[in-house]
């Protein structure tokens, strides 16, 4: 037998026959033998069918990376980044590849269905039965028409998560105008990252996410953004990370976070801050930058006399007083006197030198022999020295004259004029006086737990390493003081002159050259739409009312408002790409609400929302769709992309945009006419691409067909640039056109002052609201400042629920391929762990791997503990991916921990200015089960 073992010609089948052994595992003996018969047929390498590559874009985060979808025999088997796409550049993050699994998710919904069990609840089987699309759409339209007839059309709402642009969520605006509801698109952004948009909006005039020039930055200061895990656009960010960390000079990175993650571990420095205290750090850094004179004078400006008056604790007069003028005059006089004295000294020295020469000349005449030669040599040296001195004096005089020629007249301080001449910022001295002067690093150390030494070091590095970027996300902003935290951080970009700069915060997203549709909504609005009772109704989330005057969306308020009936109760709701039943703070409230509402879910997958659904109108999954979108803000220049179906839809599904159009066709009155004219989303997309004819993409995309071939349209570069305090506009060849202050206000910084507002006009206008919500005196309202965070829940540990690198939006919990690699830092293979510090664990008798209870006044969930040095002793960390109870067979696997959503222990608190839900502000207690 030993011979045969090493006989390379022996096939496995023959080996098995010869030995009677069936696999060393021995468990599937017979099966193995049977299989090996068929194996012979698969011996030769084979490739079946022709592989087709289709252009699409990713669905797993807001970045929208261009993807190549590989399909063979009608089956998708691979997804890679598109090489000639400026976002993906041929690369993908882990999530980019999930599409193959999502498409073939074995739990997918196979067609429209209606509920037959009238009882609703977490544990109630909806008893769905399949229905036809016509029947389903008629049910929806029937309800909507009935509401309209009763004058209650405002009680119809659409709740949306990730929208892709005009071919889906964008359609809802028109639908709202035609049908008549203020609730046409209740967005999720307040449960996302609205605080960062609000900060940018009120300080530099852009209600948007920023574009950063990572490729050219030399310093990156990250506050609570999970740059290498959760910050968007993740894939391009990682591409730039590779560049930043290997270019010359290498980009230095400082990370501020509450626990150690891969971002903090990859950085040069990690500052472990107490949750919600990031703003204190940023204020102290600003304090250091000012007191040490490190601010960017080109962008910010300077004191008229160049004397730095930023001294800790000292208020600065806003205007020049007589003392300043006298001091300036005295300093000038002193300088002039010094100059005169120097000139006099030089003249005296020359006289002395000439006298010496005369003396030598005389001596030479009189001397003889060796002595004469020595004296002659001495004379020659003296003459040479004199010539050199003259030449040097002449050169200095010439150079001085040249400098004088170009010198601008020095500003003369005049009593009553601003002491600090601000250039592109607004309110610096007032900010210093009311807030910054006392915000020392030592003060911040007390508040934040980060040492004053580290704060000073980082402030100096940040201000002196140019260009630099300071960015923040929910770690800093998902707190009750989140906008004020964010304002303090964002101000650092202005103080150091990195706004709109190369290598800095580059700017904001430019728009794509889409063609406008040749149809006007106004022509199809009936009287009800124009002036029906719905017009007097606020949105159900109370946005833009006295309650939330500045917020864009307040999704987390909907359930509370509905349950109270204030302002009213919803009747019918369509849900698209969002699932507040799981992802909203204090999420169980939504279960109560959905019991009372006719719920129309559009997800092609099961989920918590669909357990409460009355009707399911399943969307295509993304690789089956034709869809367009604009980029997530990246480098500022416009990018748009298209999804071309890689396969025919696997099931009887319909793309969401077409569902809206089909419902529209069934609304009585002119609305139906409007939607019959539009007919479908493909028509819209084709029409919009007409805009590319006039403005072709850099990659040659000029219409719908070329767009489908390339998958992306883009036009470089970003239009504006700030350099040394001057704003330029791209003129087709270079940043050559200098912008006036009025043009900067119109095009680049559209704030009320046209400046970067350190004193925020919008908050001055809302000072009463700020006073009411924060208890701040009105005069303090407009400035970035320290506000003590209020913590939701109750308990002795801070609780944060971050997003992991492998976590896709919504659907990754039901993908076993994801679960098997999620939270790798803590060894996740099946579940996610609660990070708890050894001290905190010991105090509670918790050992590594124990099941623990996280609880507070909101609720309680169970999870397995991971005792680790990666988190603060006062903070526990649980990623938010798992804990689903209705998302599919894998998400709901038996004994999967955590037992519920992190939002079952997250109080529904909102930041008052942006409305952002305070996901990271909670307190909990943790105990062994």
């Amino acid at each position, binding site marked *: 037998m030993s011979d045969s073992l090493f006989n390379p010609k022996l096939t496995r089948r023959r*080996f098995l026959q010869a030995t009677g052994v069936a696999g060393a595992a021995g468990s599937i003996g017979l099966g193995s033998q049977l299989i090996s018969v068929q194996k012979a047929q698969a011996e030769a390498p084979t490739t079946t069918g022709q592989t087709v590559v289709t252009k699409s874009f990713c669905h797993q985060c807001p970045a929208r990376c261009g993807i190549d979808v590989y399909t063979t025999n009608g089956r998708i088997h691979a*997804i890679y980044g598109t090489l000639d796409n400026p976002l993906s550049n041929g690369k993908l993050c882990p999530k980019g590849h999930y599409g193959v699994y999502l498409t073939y998710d074995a739990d997918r919904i196979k067609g429209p269905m209606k509920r037959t069990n009238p009882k609703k609840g977490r544990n109630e089987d909806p008893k769905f039965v399949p229905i036809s699309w016509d029947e389903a759409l008629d049910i929806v339209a029937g309800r909507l028409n009935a509401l309209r007839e009763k004058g209650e059309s405002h009680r119809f709402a659409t709740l949306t998560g990730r929208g892709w642009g005009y071919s889906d969520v964008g359609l809802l605006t028109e639908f709202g105008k035609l049908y008549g509801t203020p609730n046409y698109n209740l967005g999720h952004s307040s449960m996302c990252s609205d605080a960062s948009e609000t900060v940018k909006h009120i300080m530099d005039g852009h209600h948007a996410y920023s574009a950063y020039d990572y490729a050219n930055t030399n310093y990156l200061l990250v506050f609570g953004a999970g740059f290498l895990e959760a910050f968007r656009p993740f894939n391009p960010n990682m591409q730039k990370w590779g560049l930043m960390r290997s270019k010359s000079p290498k980009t230095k990175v400082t990370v501020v976070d509450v626990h150690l993650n891969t971002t903090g571990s990859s950085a040069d420095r990690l500052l472990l801050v107490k949750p919600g205290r990031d703003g204190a750090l940023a204020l102290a850094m600003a304090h250091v930058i000012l007191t040490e004179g490190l601010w960017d004078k080109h962008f910010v400006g300077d004191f008229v006399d160049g004397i730095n008056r930023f001294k800790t604790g000292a208020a600065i007069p806003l205007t020049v007083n007589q003392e300043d003028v006298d001091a300036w005059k005295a300093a000038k006089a002193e300088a002039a006197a010094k100059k005169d004295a120097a000139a006099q000294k030089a003249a005296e020295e020359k006289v002395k030198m000439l006298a010496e020469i005369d003396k030598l000349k005389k001596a030479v005449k009189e001397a003889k022999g060796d002595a004469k030669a020595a004296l002659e040599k001495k004379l020659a040296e003296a003459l040479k020295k004199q010539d050199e001195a003259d030449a040097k004096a002449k050169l200095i005089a010439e150079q001085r004259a040249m400098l004088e020629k170009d010198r601008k007249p020095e500003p003369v301080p005049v009593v009553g004029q601003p002491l600090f001449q601000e250039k592109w910022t607004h309110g610096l001295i007032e900010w210093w006086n009311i807030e910054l002067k006392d915000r020392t690093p030592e003060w911040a150390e007390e508040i934040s737990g980060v040492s004053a030494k580290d704060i000073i070091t980082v402030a100096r590095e940040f201000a002196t390493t140019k260009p630099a970027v300071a960015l923040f996300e929910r770690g800093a902003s998902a707190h009750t003081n989140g906008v004020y935290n964010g304002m303090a951080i964002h101000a650092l970009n202005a103080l150091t002159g990195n706004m709109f700069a190369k290598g800095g915060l580059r700017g904001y997203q430019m728009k794509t050259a889409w063609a406008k549709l040749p149809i006007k909504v106004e022509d199809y609005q009936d009287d009800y739409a124009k002036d029906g009772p719905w017009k007097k109704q606020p949105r159900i989330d109370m946005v833009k009312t006295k309650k939330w005057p500045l917020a864009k969306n307040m999704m987390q308020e909907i359930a509370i408002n509905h349950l109270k009936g204030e302002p009213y109760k919803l009747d019918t709701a369509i849900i698209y790409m969002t699932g507040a039943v799981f992802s909203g703070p204090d999420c169980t409230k939504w279960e109560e609400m959905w019991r009372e509402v006719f719920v129309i879910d559009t997800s092609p997958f099961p989920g918590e929302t669909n357990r409460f659904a009355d009707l399911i109108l399943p969307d295509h999954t993304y690789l089956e769709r034709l869809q367009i979108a604009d980029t997530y803000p990246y480098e500022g220049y416009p990018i748009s992309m298209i999804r071309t179906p890689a396969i025919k839809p696997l099931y009887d599904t319909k793309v969401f945009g077409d569902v809206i159009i089909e419902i529209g066709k069934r609304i009585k009155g002119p609305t139906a006419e409007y939607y019959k004219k539009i007919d479908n989303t493909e028509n819209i997309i084709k029409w919009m691409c007409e805009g590319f004819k006039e403005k072709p993409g850099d990659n040659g995309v000029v219409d719908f067909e070329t767009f489908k071939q390339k998958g992306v349209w883009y036009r470089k570069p970003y239009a504006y640039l700030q350099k040394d305090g001057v704003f330029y506009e791209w003129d087709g060849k270079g940043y050559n056109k200098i912008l006036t202050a009025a043009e900067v206000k119109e095009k680049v910084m559209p704030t009320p002052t046209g400046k970067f507002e350190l004193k925020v006009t919008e908050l001055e206008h809302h000072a009463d609201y700020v006073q009411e919500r924060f208890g701040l005196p009105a005069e303090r309202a407009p400035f970035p400042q320290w506000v003590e965070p209020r913590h939701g829940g109750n308990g002795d540990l801070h609780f944060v629920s971050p997003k992991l690198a492998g976590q896709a939006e919504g659907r990754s919990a039901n993908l076993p391929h994801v679960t098997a690699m999620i939270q790798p830092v803590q060894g996740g293979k099946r579940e996610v762990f609660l990070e708890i510090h050894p001290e905190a664990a010991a105090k509670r008798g918790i050992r590594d791997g124990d099941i623990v209870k996280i609880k507070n006044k909101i609720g309680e969930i169970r999870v397995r503990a991971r005792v680790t040095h990666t988190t603060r002793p006062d903070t526990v960390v649980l990623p938010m991916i798992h804990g689903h109870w209705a998302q599919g067979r894998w998400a709901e696997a038996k004994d999967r921990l955590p037992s519920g959503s992190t939002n079952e222990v997250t109080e529904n608190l909102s930041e008052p200015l942006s409305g952002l839900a305070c996901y990271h502000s909670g307190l909990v207690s943790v105990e062994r089960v």
Partner: protein
Amino acid sequence: MAKWGMVIDLEKCTGCQACTIACGMENSRLPGEHWQDVIFFQEGEYPNAEIKWFPRPCMHCENPSCVAVCPVRATYKAEDGQVLIDWERCIGCKYCMIACPYGVRFYTEEKATYGGPNMKDVFKSEDAHSWSPPWKMPQEDWKHGVGVQPHDVVSKCTFCFHRVSKAPKGTVDFDPQNPATREYTPACVVTCSPGARFFGDLSNPNSEVNRQIAYKNGVRLLDHLGNKPQVYYLTGEGGSVPATRSLKKI
């Protein structure tokens, strides 16, 4: 004849696991069957704790322990330097799994860790394959361990044999940014966002892989064992590889 090798720059690696997922997709792997795993470990104490990691494909050793112990010569060193498994011959004895110092091998019948229904039951195979996912790769080459494997065999990273072996003769550098070589480049190298991975011919002194190893002091994992891996790590300032000790995976 080439000698294929890989270089992984840990200074650029962000630990995102795109390589793991891309590999699983490209090669139709079961969930958790990470031919290209990323190994994470923690060191130190708060507040100066560290998280470290390194991606770990098969090392395709010059002196492969697995080949030496395979009783049926199923595992072998191929012409161009890859260590491959012939699924026609493999008897699933797992000797190789024990012999491999890098833990890169997987047995088909391993118990699933991910919870929920077993994917092999959900996507049951009607024939000799151990399962039949709808997204399975179109290539099948059991002699080289490519495709969905049969039951009771051991599998591992092939350096994407089905892609690399189709490259035109004489290819030295597999640059995923170059359209001419992109489709032949291993999946993990193609997708790596920060560009931390390089693949090419170690036998060519001018190759990019050799340049990277020389410029940035490439090291090999557990080098003292003498396996001479054909995968090199660049540790720079940012990363660290345990070159002289074995590590317990978390």
